[in-house]
């Protein structure tokens, strides 16, 4: 029980630290906004309790593949359309 309690309070502390880091990062990201409602705006959301490296490790796991450049010679009409 003590071990469980200790681990959960450690987890809370870590999430709190990640949230503070998020606040600073969000402030930096929003500094470029011109306030005209077109530029992206950033804030606290369901990922704010994660450090960027944790976020990357969980959610940014797509690998890229080498694909050819699309050239005008590729005739879209020749490919079976959906």
């Amino acid at each position: 029980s003590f071990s469980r309690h200790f681990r959960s309070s450690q987890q809370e502390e870590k999430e709190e630290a990640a949230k503070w880091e998020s606040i600073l990062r969000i402030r930096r990201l929003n500094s470029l906004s011109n306030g005209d409602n077109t530029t992206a705006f950033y804030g606290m959301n369901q990922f704010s309790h994660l450090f960027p490296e944790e976020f990357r490790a969980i959610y940014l796991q797509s690998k890229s593949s080498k694909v050819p450049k699309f050239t005008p010679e590729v005739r879209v009409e020749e490919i079976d359309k959906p």
Partner: protein
Amino acid sequence: LPAKFDWRDKGIVTKVRNQGVCGGCWAFSVVGIIESVHAIKRNVLEELSVQQVIDCSYINSGCRGGSPVGALGWINQTRVKLVRDSEYHFQAETGLCRYFSRADFGVSIKGYAAYDLSDQEDKMKKLLLEWGPLAVVVDAASWQDYLGGIIQYHCSSGEPNHAVLITGYDTTGSIPFWIVKNSWGPAWGIDGYVRIKIGSNVCGIADEVSAAFL
């Protein structure tokens, strides 16, 4: 081309899903485009199984990551039939591949295309209309904190790490943008969607574009 277009208006895009704590975005993007071309061609919008692609696409790494183009290649080569999501429900972890009888319902593809369209975003608009929603791989590091608006900065090309799908575009305002469906649930961004500026390959949105054909 119309100034504004969104496949959602045609009723061929399934609802935004949530990948949970699973790095399976690559499977969500591929299944998303197949659901849409299936709806365009057969006039039935059905959620297909992402878990089937995660479990069975052996060339990828399930919830530890994968490539949409690799997954499309696998689906095309094996002619595997994607079953309904209700039959092979998403578990947010990699599991054992389940096989289904050939006689069962399923959607297979006849081909796919994958191209680098950087510097050709106008051409991408045409392909979106002709082919249906497009799967793309982007740099989404700054999306962790995204709430809304059009992403124009804080995103690089050449560092792809997240797969999503483009369902439409809008060029009627001062900043033209792509309408992009994500798989982080409807609470994230604009009802689960994000807007990306068109024209300068923001987030590398045009670097790896793929489509499926039924």
